[in-house]
């Protein structure tokens, strides 16, 4: 063998030997919390959620006092792909300690499979019941056990408007759906489109439409039927459901009533769909959206003042017996691994102190009624918080309550309907078929 080859082989052997030694040596302990491993004493709690951007900054600020006081490190992992990551890790046996659940539907699935810890063993239930209204706690309960609590919430079904535009037209805030319809017709006759709607939202395109339908349904048929609906006990082809779709159709399927026609509705991202309200002259006058749209409006139009340049009123009642109804949604948090660190953190998360970070930092609302209104950054979020606290009828976002497949089909159905409203029959039939399979 040539000398050069001998040397090469020798070098290779040495490198391999070193490599082997290094890899197996105890020096190579760089395992990370992501594996969900437990460390003794101070330790770490791993959190998996969808929060990013500014939300993430707020979360980190919120976690700081906790870390300083307890010495427990909060290890956060963020992903928009929460379904994929969470499902995979749960199935493979290394779930995060704490995770924001994709929705009550998913939460129920995890709970029934036995993956979620019963939080009544973790919380001081007296305190929790004092802080949170029964409705919120019920939402996080599966099979009698509390498995999820709300980190932050929002109201869905606020009608946003531009006060200047309304003043110019001499429009008064409607007190019920009939008045709303009258205003709408008046504007259409003048060649103006009253509503602006934007459905696009990446993977979840169509959810804005589901909010519309939920708010209409709630006020047409009441909370009992609403519950039947998301529990899968009401057929999609039933007259009640059909009536709700057709009511919405009067607004969205009509080029005279919605800005930009169906192309605009389908292709505009929900975060920018309020923009026509602030055009000169206004492209639209009303925009139905959740409380969190505020931050989007501020981003796109930094000079607008909340309250003066944009404001909201509650979704107008349709049937008088269902007034003061509110639809809410929020980030549900559950615990997968019962560790002392996780217990401490989830207890901290639900305190008014921790919640106040969310409210003052992001303008989100808190389900904890002991968060002082002082912690809401402006008049609009304070109003929203008050609406939430005073509402007689509070229901949760129905589509979030439905099983994954039903939810997805609902979103696509919205898109299909706007694309071609004449196909309502077959759309409803398809939804009905999914209902039979998904529940």
């Amino acid at each position, binding site marked *: 063998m040539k000398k050069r*080859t001998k040397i090469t082989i020798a070098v290779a052997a040495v490198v391999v030997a070193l490599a082997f030694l290094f*890899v197996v040596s105890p020096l190579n302990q*760089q*395992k*990370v*919390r*992501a*594996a969900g*491993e437990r460390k003794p004493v101070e330790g770490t709690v*791993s959190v*998996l*959620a*969808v*929060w*990013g*951007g*500014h*939300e*993430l900054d707020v979360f980190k600020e919120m976690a700081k006092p906790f870390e300083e006081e307890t010495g427990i490190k909060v*290890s*956060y*992992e*963020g*992903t*928009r*792909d929460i379904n*994929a*990551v969470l499902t*995979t*890790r749960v*199935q*493979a*046996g*290394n779930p995060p300690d704490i995770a924001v659940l994709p929705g009550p539907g998913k939460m129920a699935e995890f709970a029934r499979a036995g993956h979620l810890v019963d939080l009544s063993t973790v919380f001081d239930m007296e305190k929790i019941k004092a802080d949170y209204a029964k409705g919120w706690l019920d939402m996080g309960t599966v099979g009698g056990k509390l498995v999820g609590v709300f980190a932050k919430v929002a109201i869905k079904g606020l009608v946003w408007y531009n006060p200047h535009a309304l003043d110019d037209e001499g429009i008064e805030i409607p007190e019920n759906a009939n008045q709303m319809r009258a205003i709408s017709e008046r504007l259409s006759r003048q060649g103006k489109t009253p509503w602006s709607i934007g459905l696009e*939202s*990446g993977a979840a395109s169509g959810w804005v439409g589901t909010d519309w339908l939920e708010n209409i349904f709630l006020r047409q048929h009441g909370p009992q039927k609403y519950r039947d609906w998301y529990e899968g006990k009401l057929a999609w082809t039933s007259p009640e459901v059909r009536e709700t779709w057709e009511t919405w159709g009067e607004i969205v399927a009509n080029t005279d009533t919605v800005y930009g026609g169906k192309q605009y509705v389908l292709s505009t*991202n929900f*975060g*920018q769909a309020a*923009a026509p309200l602030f055009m000169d002259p206004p492209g639209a006058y009303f925009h139905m959206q959740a409380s*969190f749209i505020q*931050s*989007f409006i501020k*981003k*796109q*139009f*930094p000079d607008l003042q909340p309250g003066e340049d944009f404001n909201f009123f509650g979704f107008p009642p349709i049937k008088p017996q269902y007034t003061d109804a509110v639809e809410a949604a929020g*980030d549900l948090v559950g615990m997968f691994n019962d560790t002392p660190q996780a217990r401490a953190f989830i207890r901290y998360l639900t305190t008014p102190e921790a919640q106040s970070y969310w409210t003052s930092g992001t303008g989100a609302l808190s389900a904890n009624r002991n968060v002082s209104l002082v912690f809401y950054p402006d008049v609009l979020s304070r109003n929203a918080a008050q609406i939430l606290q005073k509402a007689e009828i509070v229901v949760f976002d129905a589509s979030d309550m439905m099983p994954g497949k039903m939810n997805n089909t609902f979103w696509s159905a919205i898109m299909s309907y706007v694309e071609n409203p004449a196909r309502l029959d077959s759309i409803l039939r398809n939804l009905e078929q999914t209902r039979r399979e998904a529940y």
Partner: protein
Amino acid sequence: MNGERHITGRVIRFVRKSLIHLILLAICVIWLVPTLGLFISALRPRALILNTGWWKAFDAPLRFTMENYLHVIQQANMGRSFFNSLMIAIPATVMPILVAAFAAYAFSWMRFPGRDVLFLMIIGLLVVPLQMTLIPILRLFNSLRLTGTFVGVWVAHTAYGLPFAIYLLRNFIGGIPEDLFESAFLDGANHVQIFYRLVLPLAVPAIASLSIFQFMWVWNDLLVALIYLGGTPDVAPMTVTISNLVNSYGGGWEFLTSAAFISMVLPLLVFFSLQRYFIRGILAGSIKG
């Protein structure tokens, strides 16, 4: 008469040359415009991106800003993520090469029962969707305590890249003229020598192509790193940190414009540096040598 043909020849060559340039430039422009749009947008203030087309950036008043880039770079952990991305991508690019080359050599120049079927099965593995492997492999990693380690994610990426690597290298190595081998054997060379002295050098363009693609795929990967390695700041690659720029409602996506360019720099560098291995005649040269 010769003079006429000469001129006609020149005209034809000129037209041909112009046509080549025309087509090529047209294609280049079409390919460039989308990226150019993003590049300009990344330099504009957020409000303008959302309300006007990017070409309006050249209308007075000119309002360019580095705020998008600065926000991304100053993002907590961006430096560490860059390091992590390198830490993941470089070994994951290097490791499959020799493994695939061995296999490709065997498939090309050794005969054994089941050779063709086995090779077809490897091509078949190209189509395995990543998502179907996540749960079984994560379970395996969990039991081997490889979750959250760089070693784990290297091995995973190596495995995911092997089918394509073997396929591509097999094609190149199989294309080496048989007489080269015969003369080498006549000279008394054994397989190891032939592999390292003849096959590998000739396969350099293929290895270079392979490296470019594997590096890029690993560099731009999000899901594999997230699942096997985790998204915590000490191990998160750039893709994870960038995705955290966007909040759960999708707000903040304008930062993706600048993040995309920051993230693009390295793969492009890799592309350029490996380009010199695409030299015409590298095969022809060795025939003479």
